[in-house]
């Protein structure tokens, strides 16, 4: 009962907050609602006993990425809101597609089968601590995908520096 209640709370609040983020007129207010949204997502991870992911969610998304959003919003200096009704007129089509996807997902959910229980049970994670279990898995079994992801990030970093430097030289 208690876990269901917690999950229900998070699910409802996350949905509600995401609606608030996209409907606010003031972009800074949107960013603040998004901050609260990220904390709720972190809470959801905590609820799944994934404490490391929860902390990283707050540190990386709330602490770094969202602050960059905030910088962009603040430096754009949006004093007046854009007074355009809609950018595109095809929202009924989008609504139909979104509803169809929702129906499809709800049908698909009925036939979902849980995977076989593996080595990483809740008790195992609790004993090993989540950070340690995740680290060992990332650096042994999933080392190759992990390194590929790191390489892609490195390319992005170097690309950003190259772009910034080229502007400086000219």
């Amino acid at each position, binding site marked *: 009962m*208690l*876990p269901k209640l*917690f999950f229900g709370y998070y699910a409802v609040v996350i949905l509600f907050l995401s609606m608030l983020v996209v409907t606010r007129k*003031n972009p*800074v*207010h949107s960013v*603040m609602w998004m*901050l609260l949204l990220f904390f709720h997502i972190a809470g959801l991870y*905590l*609820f799944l*006993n994934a*404490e*490391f992911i*929860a*902390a*990283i969610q*707050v*540190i990386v998304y*709330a*602490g*770094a990425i969202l*602050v960059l959003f*905030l*910088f962009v919003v*603040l430096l754009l200096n949006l004093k007046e809101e854009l007074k355009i009704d809609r950018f595109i007129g095809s929202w009924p089509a989008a609504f139909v597609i979104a509803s169809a996807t929702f129906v499809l997902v709800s049908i698909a959910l009925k036939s979902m089968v849980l995977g076989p229980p593996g080595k990483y049970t*809740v008790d195992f994670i*609790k004993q090993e*601590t*989540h*950070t340690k279990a995740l680290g060992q898995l990332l650096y042994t079994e999933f080392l190759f995908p992990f390194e590929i992801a790191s390489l892609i990030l490195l390319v992005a970093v170097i690309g950003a520096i190259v772009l910034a430097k080229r502007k400086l030289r000219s």
Partner: protein
Amino acid sequence: MTSILENIVAPGSIDFMLNIGIILLKIAIVIGMGLLHVAYATYFERKVIGHMQVRLGPREVGPLGLLQPIADGVKLFFKEDIIPSESDKPIFYLSPVIFFISALTSLSVIPFFDGFVIADINIGLLFLFAMSSLAAYGIVMSGWSSGSKYSFLGGLRSASQVISYEIAMGLSLVGVMIMAGSLNLTEIVRAQQAYPLGIFAIPQFIGFFVFVVAAFAETNRLPFDLPEAESELVAGYFTEYSGFRFALFFLGEYTGMLVMSSIASVCFLGGWGLPGFITSNLPVFAWKALGLAFFLVKVYAFMFLYYWVRATLPRYRYDQLMAIGWKLLLPLALANIVLTGLVKIWMKGLL
């Protein structure tokens, strides 16, 4: 879910409600004691800086001026609360609260003495980083919502400063994590017992240096107090705040200093750790009290360092601040991680 609750509440078979009561009591004690320490940290600061500048510091209210912080608090509480008409009201109200709460929440994972932590969580250090990144929102939002150019510039400066130095600070503590093999602050204290003098500061001297410099920048203290540089920005991000909202920023800043000093004490200076011959010969109560005293002495030594530097060094320029953070501290911290890792792998007996 129950497992998380069990982790927060001390594991054991005591009644659930009793545990919650104990936790609430612990929270009340930590907040009460923490705020009292914060109040007297301001008195300590004024006395120390006064004597360094050949003045006497506060001495009028109470014996030796000891009631000065209380008088200041009462004054701030009864001051008129002015809200600028150009401000964004909800965020203007909210940002000092975010700033203060994030500093106060950090106190919940710090072990004050053996067995006394509000939340003994496995990701203690990461939790501290998460809370310090939340504090940046309080600053930047207060700057934006005030609707004043000084506040706005102060807020932007502070946000970029805090984000830049957070990276260096986080990486400087990775060496400690590698040596202790844990993110839990209590286990970090325990792990230090095996090292000379019971502290990590000697093998981790590079990490400690980076941490100290980054801690000064993180709390917006001199020589890195650019967000509130008086000669340029009036008072920076809290220029428009008055009365008790200003007091929340003030309390938040000093609580932040207390938290940083506590992290330094716990992660580098041994925290409440005592040598084995003391813990085995004294009764439990006595050595726990001694541990708390040791912890507080280290915290206050670090606080004294804050004041000492404030009275000694001039303020850096903004480009110098960024250069120190990105070109000196970050490479040093990264080198420290590589070095610690290599030593840990190759010389197993040493670390």
